[in-house]
Structure formats: structure tokens, C-alpha cells
């Protein structure tokens, strides 16, 4: 991108200095005058009847301002997509994270002590912790009122005719793959401060990644509390990571609101690290039965998948991940015939939520592992097999995705070249190579009624600009990207752009940080607003300089004529002249961008995104056959991202995603035993450390995405989508054992090696 001076440059995050110096104010740092501290009492058992709940002792503890239970919540008030989750539970508890009571006190210490004074008597009930068991006839119902443990959210996608395709296939493979619970591990734990004014309007300080939708939810809550037609203002703190964990509203927020109502004081609830582990919602675990076939030439003929997801006891957006899983299932490689059925099942486990990739990593693990099996059966090199079936620009996939730009083949080629695939394949000595590809939404995703984002731009008297965007920066760097776009269009230095993104009173609507959409959608919104204000500036400057606006340009904050060198003025001076004159004006512009993508129809078909992101990961591993340990020797992550707006941040997303994917593949697992989390800490939850980072090469494959801001597509999630299958395939190549259940631990490898030895 030679013509641009700011877009396309490796510009460090504009918020890096405040974060590095500790000046950034996270929710933990925010204090509101008169604020009380809330703490939540959770169920002692994953499944139990509450026989007695006595809060009287807690209430009399000095410093306690309120103790609340389900009795204080509006009756029948439920949260979540299926409205199956009362913020405070009564009668029966259904999971270990069930909120039973809560306290507001003058300090967290007093609140904690008060919790220990609440007397609860339980009758422990046998729980169901296995979705297969929960699906059986006569299984205890988790929610008695809904009559079945299978969620009334039937996921079914049928394209073409799988049965006929099976008959016509030369090779077919079938197998079952499973994945585990993993959690987001945000550095910033969840938290909020709820504050009501005298008219019962709510201000919620929060680290949510969906301010506009959260506003909606809390307006509903105030209605339920009897405060009709109130205003809700969400003020976001600096957000210490989201990864999907903050993509819904949660019981603790409603509890904070309830405590604020009871005490008429602001109430702050901050999760401890322990709570962050067990009381937030992980990525759902899946059991995937997959069958795929190909013809003699190795062209894919069909893909059939049946999937069971452990929903846990309540329902969050996580239950809708099968909709995104449909994307790789129907459209990763060219597959004409597709059948996919998924069931989400209630259990007494923790309930699941969105997490980076939104189901795609689970589905891709099954697809890409199975694809290697198929390639082997067909006697074709797995990389060659993938090239043969690769997606292409201009394709319309069976689910009706319109593929615009597509650099999939180029990504696979990069992997082949940089991994020295051909030579490494011949290798051996316990080393092996593996590859897996990905498709993800790269131009928004219409999963809600609107996929839009608004932006307002306001110029000051000095040539500086304030940009009010709906898009939240959760650490991914969207503020920097938005500032780059605006600075580029206006011809001003990036330091002169101030991005305001944290207050629903000021910022326009945005659907939220999900679906890798922020650069694409908020970027387009910022671009639209910047172009509009540029027109206004040039229009007014044209009058000042007596020049046709079309001959005017702005560079380094100077407006000048491209025709006549004499005609120029500093931007700030021009703005002041436009302002300080009779009938003067301040320049402002707004723009709302909603991409031209489609909601799925009743058959789950439609062009979900206006563009799709592609990538391929290749990995070389070495397996220690005596210990089962895997060492990653080389990791290539090639991504088709359209045009990079900021290669530095882009690579950051690829490294970060890749590393999160490596954790998913090789070590991370929330160990639940009978509904209880056994490893809710960083010692036993094996998130990789900096010392575990293998050599990762991020390769940017440029395509030009006509709808993207400056040609860009999304990259937030793709980095971890194909990691696990690429590693599993490499391990198979190295030592001939295929691990079908994540994470791939040394124990599983050693066991498989011993079994294999026993067989031969």
C-alpha cells in the first residue's frame, strides 16, 4: 500500500503507553463515591434442593448493607437467550456456579465474612454430568418445566444429497472426535459497578464487549423491577481481554443492580480469579461424529456430521455456536453435499458461552483430522489433497456463502514452502508435519437483527478530531485501527485522533465485539464518517482558498491545492475561520454502516458475511516416544486477511490466536469432576507461558477485499481455528497415532503408542 502513509503501517497500539505504565483504568480501578462491595454465595453442590436459607446472621454483621436472595428478585425474571437462568436461584440448584444469595457491604472483607454467616441447608441430588446420559429416555430433567434435556434449538443443515453421494464415493472415512472445556483466561476478571440515580436510571460501569446489547438487557431488567421506561447508560472501563467471555450479560450484573436498588448506593462486584475460573462460561465441549467421502481423483463428495454439545445448566449465546460451525462444515473446501445435525444438551455442568472462534475450532478439529484420514485412504498427500479441494474466489458454497476474495490456495502454498513440506514428509525420526486450513467470517456476521456500527466525528478548532465509535476495544487494537483509518482519510497525524468508545450516552450503537467484525464493520463506519467530514472540510476550505474542492487535498494537516501551490492553509486555521464567523459552524459527521450480509433463512442458509477469511496452519513437531511429549519445532500461520491496515496488530492477532490454539491443542482443559471444577487456577490450568512459545511465523497473504475498509478483512478469531488439527495431523505423521480427543496430552500419546505397539 504505497499511497498510504498511515494505513498499512506497523503502528504500535495507541493505548500501549497507558497500559504499560499502569495508568489505564480497568474496572478493578474504578471507584464511585459511596460505593459498596458485593459478593456472591454460590451453591455448595451441582445439584441440590435448598431446604433452608437463613440470612439473618449475615444481616446483623456490622458493615453489611444488604443481603439478597431469589425472593428479592422480580418473580419469573430470567436471563439468557432461552430465558432459563434466574440471576438468583431458589428451590433447586442446577450447577456448582448457581448464585444463591449475595451481600453488599462496606468492604469485600466484610461481604465475604457475611457470606460465611449465611446458613444454607441442602439436600444433595444425583446430578447428570454427561450429555449422552442426559439425552436418555427417563433421565432426570435439569429444567423440569421444559420436559426435555435437549435444548429446543434444533440445528440442522442439509445441502444436496448425502446418501447418494455416499454411494458414489470411492473412499469414505468415519470417526468420532471430541473437545474439552477451555476458558478465556482474560487478565482482567469480570466486574461491574451498578449505580442508580434518584429517578432510577441506571449507570453500569462495566467491561462488557457488547455495550449496546447489554443496555437492552438492563432496560428489560429495570422494567422487571418495576422501573418502566428508564434510561440505562453503560460506561466501559479499559477492558483486560474478552475473547467472547464478555459477550453476554450475567447474573452477577443483575445482582449488582438488585443490591444497588436495595441499598440506594453504587455496588461493585469484581470476580476473584477463582470466580473467573468457575463462575464464567467456557467454550463448549463437543462430541462430533463425522463422515466424509471423496471420488477417485480425491475430490470431496460429501460431509456428514452429528454433534452433541454439553450446554450446561443454563443457556447463553454459546448454544448458538452450531450456527457458526455450519460455516466450516458446509464451506471449508468445496463439498457439494452436506448434512449436519447438532443437539445442545442440558446437564448439571457449568454453562457455556462464546469464545474466540465461536464453535469453529471444535468443528474444524473434526473436519481437518478426518480429512487427513480420508487423504490417507485415498493415497493422496494431505497437502495436495487440500489444494485439490481448495475454495476459490467467486464460488457460491452449498450454504449460499458468496466467496469474494479467497487466498486459501496461496496460504496452503506458503505453508508448503516455508515448512519444506516435501522434504519433511520424507524425514522421520519421530518428526512429522501437519496442515489444516480454515474459513471464517471476515466481513461481519449477521447473527443479530443488525450487524451495524455507528460513528460520529467531530473536528475541534485546532485540526484535531474526536471519533465516537460504537466499537469496543477489548485489547485487540480496534482503537488504533480506527484512528489510522480516520487519520489517513483526513491527512492528519494519528496522534491527532482521539477515539472515544466507552459510553452509550455518547457513542452510537454497535452490535458488539464478535465475529472478527470490528475492523471490517467499525472500520467501514469510521471510513464513512471520515469521508463525509473530509468533504465538509474541503467544501468550506474551497470557499476560503477560492479553489474547487475537488482540487484540494490534506496532508500533514495542511489543506492545499493540487493545482496551485500558493493556495494552502493549515487545517486548524481553516477550521477556526469556518467556526469564528457570522453563521459559522463546527464540523461534525456521522455514519452508520451495516454490511449487506444476510441472516440465515429457516434452512440456515444465506450469505452470513460479506467476505470470508481464509488461512492455513502448518506445523512440524517432534514426539518423544518414551514420554509422549510433543515439541513444536516450527509453526507457520498463513492468513488471507485482505489488505492489512496494521501488520503489527495483525501479526499480534495471529501469534496470540496461534498460541491460544496451541494451548487448546496440547494442554488446556477445565477438569470437571461430577460438576465441580478441579483445576480453577493457573497452576493446574495449563495455559502456555511465554517459555512455551514455539517459533511461529505469521504469514500475511494479501487479497483485495472490495467491501473491506482499505481492502481489509477480519482476523480476530482465525488464528486459533486450525491449530489443533494441524498439530494432531503432525503428530500422526510423526509417530502414527491419531489423538481424537483434545487436549493431546503426553498420556494420550503414550497410551496410543503402547496400544499400537501391542497391535503390531
Amino acid at each position, binding site marked *: 500500500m504505497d499511497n498510504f502513509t498511515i494505513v498499512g503501517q506497523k503502528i504500535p497500539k495507541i493505548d500501549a503507553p497507558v497500559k504499560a505504565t499502569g495508568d489505564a483504568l480497568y474496572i478493578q480501578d474504578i471507584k464511585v463515591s459511596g460505593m459498596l462491595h458485593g459478593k456472591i454465595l454460590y451453591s455448595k453442590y451441582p445439584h441440590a434442593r435448598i431446604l433452608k436459607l437463613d440470612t439473618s446472621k449475615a444481616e446483623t454483621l456490622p458493615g453489611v448493607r444488604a443481603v439478597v436472595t431469589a425472593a428479592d428478585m422480580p418473580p419469573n425474571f430470567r436471563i439468557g437467550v432461552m430465558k432459563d437462568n434466574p440471576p438468583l436461584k431458589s428451590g433447586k440448584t442446577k450447577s456448582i456456579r448457581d448464585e444463591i444469595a449475595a451481600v453488599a457491604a462496606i468492604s469485600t*472483607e466484610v461481604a465475604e465474612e457475611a457470606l460465611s454467616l449465611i446458613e444454607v441447608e441442602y439436600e444433595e441430588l444425583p446430578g447428570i454430568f454427561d450429555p449422552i446420559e442426559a439425552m436418555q429416555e427417563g433421565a432426570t430433567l435439569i429444567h423440569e418445566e421444559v420436559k426435555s434435556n435437549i435444548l429446543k434449538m434444533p440445528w440442522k443443515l442439509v445441502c444436496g444429497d448425502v446418501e447418494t453421494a455416499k454411494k458414489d464415493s470411492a473412499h469414505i472415512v468415519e470417526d468420532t472426535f471430541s473437545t474439552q472445556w477451555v476458558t478465556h483466561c482474560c487478565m482482567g476478571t469480570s466486574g461491574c459497578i451498578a449505580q442508580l440515580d434518584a429517578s432510577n436510571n441506571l449507570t453500569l460501569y462495566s467491561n462488557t464487549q457488547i455495550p449496546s446489547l447489554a443496555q437492552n438487557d438492563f432496560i428489560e431488567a429495570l422494567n422487571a423491577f418495576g422501573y418502566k421506561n428508564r434510561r440505562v447508560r453503560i460506561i466501559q472501563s479499559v477492558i483486560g481481554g474478552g475473547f467472547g467471555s464478555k459477550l453476554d450479560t450475567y447474573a452477577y450484573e443483575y445482582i449488582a443492580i438488585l443490591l444497588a436498588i436495595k441499598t440506594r448506593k453504587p455496588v461493585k462486584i469484581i470476580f476473584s480469579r477463582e470466580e473467573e475460573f468457575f463462575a464464567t462460561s467456557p467454550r463448549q465441549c463437543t462430541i462430533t461424529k463425522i463422515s466424509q467421502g471423496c471420488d477417485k481423483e480425491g475430490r470431496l463428495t460429501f460431509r456428514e456430521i452429528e454433534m452433541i454439545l454439553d450446554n450446561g445448566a443454563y443457556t447463553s449465546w454459546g448454544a448458538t455456536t452450531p450456527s457458526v460451525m455450519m460455516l466450516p462444515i458446509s464451506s471449508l473446501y468445496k463439498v457439494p453435499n452436506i448434512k449436519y445435525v447438532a443437539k445442545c444438551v442440558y446437564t448439571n455442568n457449568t454453562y457455556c458461552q462464546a469464545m474466540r472462534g465461536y464453535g469453529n475450532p471444535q468443528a474444524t478439529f473434526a473436519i481437518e483430522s478426518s480429512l487427513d484420514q480420508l487423504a490417507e485412504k485415498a493415497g493422496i498427500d494431505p497437502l495436495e489433497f487440500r489444494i485439490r479441494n481448495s475454495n476459490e474466489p467467486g464460488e457460491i458454497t452449498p450454504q449460499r456463502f458468496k466467496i469474494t476474495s479467497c487466498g486459501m490456495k496461496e496460504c496452503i502454498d506458503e505453508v508448503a514452502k516455508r515448512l519444506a513440506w516435501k522434504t519433511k514428509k520424507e524425514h522421520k525420526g519421530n518428526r512429522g508435519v501437519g496442515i489444516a486450513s480454515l474459513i471464517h467470517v471476515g466481513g461481519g456476521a449477521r447473527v443479530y437483527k443488525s450487524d451495524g456500527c455507528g460513528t460520529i466525528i467531530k473536528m475541534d478548532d485546532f485540526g484535531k478530531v474526536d471519533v465516537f465509535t460504537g466499537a469496543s476495544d477489548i485489547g485487540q487494537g480496534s482503537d488504533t485501527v480506527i484512528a489510522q483509518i480516520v487519520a489517513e482519510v483526513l491527512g492528519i497525524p494519528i496522534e491527532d485522533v482521539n477515539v472515544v468508545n466507552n459510553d452509550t450516552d455518547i457513542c452510537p450503537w454497535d452490535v458488539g465485539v464478535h465475529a472478527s467484525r470490528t475492523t471490517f464493520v467499525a472500520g467501514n463506519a469510521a471510513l464513512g464518517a471520515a469521508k463525509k467530514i473530509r468533504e465538509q472540510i474541503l467544501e468550506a476550505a474551497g470557499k476560503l482558498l477560492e479553489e474547487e474542492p475537488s482540487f484540494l487535498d490534506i496532508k500533514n494537516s495542511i489543506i492545499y491545492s493540487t493545482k496551485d501551490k500558493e493556495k494552502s492553509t493549515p487545517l486548524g486555521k481553516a477550521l477556526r475561520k469556518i467556526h469564528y464567523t457570522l453563521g459559522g459552524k463546527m464540523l461534525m459527521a456521522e455514519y452508520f454502516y451495516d454490511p449487506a450480509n444476510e441472516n440465515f433463512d429457516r434452512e440456515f442458509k444465506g450469505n452470513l458475511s460479506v467476505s470470508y477469511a481464509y488461512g492455513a496452519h502448518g506445523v512440524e513437531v517432534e514426539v518423544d516416544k*518414551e*514420554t509422549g511429549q510433543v515439541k513444536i519445532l516450527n509453526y507457520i500461520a498463513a492468513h488471507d486477511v485482505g489488505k492489512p491496515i496494521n501488520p503489527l496488530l495483525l501479526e499480534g492477532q495471529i501469534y496470540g490466536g496461534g498460541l491460544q490454539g496451541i494451548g487448546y491443542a496440547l*494442554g488446556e482443559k477445565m*477438569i470437571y469432576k461430577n460438576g465441580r471444577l*478441579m*483445576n480453577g487456577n*493457573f*497452576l*493446574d490450568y*495449563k495455559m*502456555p*507461558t*511465554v*517459555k*512455551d512459545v514455539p517459533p511461529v511465523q505469521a504469514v500475511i497473504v494479501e487479497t483485495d477485499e472490495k467491501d473491506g475498509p482499505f481492502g481489509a478483512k477480519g482476523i480476530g478469531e482465525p488464528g486459533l481455528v486450525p491449530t489443533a488439527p494441524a498439530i494432531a495431523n503432525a503428530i500422526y505423521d510423526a509417530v502414527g497415532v491419531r489423538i481424537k480427543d483434545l487436549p493431546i*496430552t*503426553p*498420556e494420550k500419546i*503414550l497410551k496410543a503408542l503402547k496400544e499400537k505397539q501391542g497391535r503390531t
Partner: protein
Amino acid sequence: MKSYEYHKPKTIEEAISLMGSLEDAKFIAGGTDVMVLIKQKKISSKCMVSLRNIDGLAYIDTQNGLRIGSGTTHNTIDENGHIKRYYSALTDATSRLGSKQIRNVATIGGNICNAAPSADTACPLLALDAKAVIVGQNGSKTTSLDEFFLGPGKTILSKEELLKEFVMPLYGENTGSAYIKHTRRNAMDLPILGVATRITVSLPDENISRCKDMFCTIDSISNILERLKDEGVKCEDVMIAMGVVAPRPMRAKNAESVMKGKIVSSELFEEIGNIAAGEAQPRDSIRGEAWYRTEMIKVLVKRALIKSIDRVIRPDEAFYPERLW
């Protein structure tokens, strides 16, 4: 967090008498175990007696063997060249304990007194035949470290007793040692299993250079062992210690006695690994399954032993072929 009294004695005697007079008091050195336990509400002592201001608890004395003061941080040990050369197993442990930040404050005394079955310095100290010098109200005594541990978190120390130092014998050029920490992560992790070995070997002088050469290859362990056997490498003395395989760090004494006096060979190592595995009583836990730990003892005892021998034969080698161990 609960508040507590914090005492800063200047001498060992003062520290001991404070412990005698204060009710519900606890020593705190680096605090990296104590503070975690307080936060987890597993201890709730009202008084903390800090050992950080006592002169003469943090030292390394290499005259005539090795003495390490209990207040010495892991990082200080890690940076000591003499220890790295003659007590290598200890450096293997301190170099990978926690993280740099932890190693800068955490002490070797705290690691041992905390008596976790996974304590990283326990296996090396056992294999290096360390003695613990304990000071109490009635003076000081010396016990072998093997007698020091009673169970998880339990030692022979009474409340008023303080661990002053570790004392290890002088080891010559024919002795090498190693510790292997088997983990899932490369940092900030406790071992699934830890194995430390120390071996004293004898071999005809004229064979040394040939042995050196074979260690420079990346041949398999069994091949190297066969060659060592041909060169007549003999085990004169050996100690093997294992962590996380029993309620306390332990020695594989049967394996040691079988090995002593024998010419090394592939079969012998195989046998030693199996005997050691038989001596352990590993359990299933979320950190690792018993069968896996048993399998790993067999592998890691072998690897630690050969690494120890390598260190005798190539004492100045900075790089050891990683693929072997």
C-alpha cells in the same frame, strides 16, 4: 485478607525465642508458599516471624564440600558456577523453579520446610546426600535430609525450630548429578514427576576420550550405554531420589543398592528404572495419572543417570544433546 503481626528478628536466637513466646506464629522467608496458603485460607497464623532480616542465613560456602544457608534464594544458587559444576542436580532444579520473579525471592529453606511432595530442590538435595542443620532453643543438631520429611507439608521441625543450613559432602571429578523435572509447561509449573540422580563412576583413564566422543553423538541411550559397558564404566556409588511419587520426596534405595558396584549397561539401566518404579507409590491426581508416573520413573531415572554420567565425562560441556534427555 486477614491482618497479622509481622516481626523482624535480627538474629537466629531472637527468631527462635519469638517463636517460643508468640502464640500461633509462623516463620516466613520468601513468602511464596506462606502467602499463597494465607490467601487460600489454609493457614491463619496471627503472627509472622520474618527470616529476611537475619544476617547469616543467606550464604553459599564451597570450602570443604558445600554449605547453603536456608535463606539463600533459588536465583543465587542458580548463578553459582561451583554448584553448577559439582552439584549440577541442584542447578537443574533452581533454574526451572517457578519463574525468575519467584526465584528472586523464594528460598531453598522455604522450599524444603514447606515439604511439598513436588518441591523441586528436595530430590537434588536428597540425591546429593544433604544434611539439614536445625537450630532450636537447646542448640543445634544435624540430621540427614531423608529423615527430615514426614509427609505432605510435614517435617520433623517443631514450631520453635529453625532450619539453618544444608551441608553436602565434597564431590570429586568422578561424580556427576542431574535432576529432571517432568512438566507440562516450560515455566510456572510443578513437576508431574521429578527424578534426581548422583553417580560416582570409575573408568580406565585411557578410555575417557572415546567416551567423550560417543556423548557428542545423538545416538540412542541404549547404544551409548552399550558403548559405556564396553569401555568398562563402573558405578561406584549412586543415589536416586524421586518426587511426587509418594507423600514425601523419597529415595529409591533398592535401585541404588542393585546398581552399586556394577558396570553400566543398557540392561542394568532398564532394571534400575523398573526397580525404582516399583519402590514408588504414585497416585492418580488431576496433575497426573499413577500409571503415567510409573512409566515416567522408568524413563527419567535412566535419563537422569546417563545425564549424570555425561557430566562426569564431559564436565565442561555447555551443550548436551537435548534429544536424549
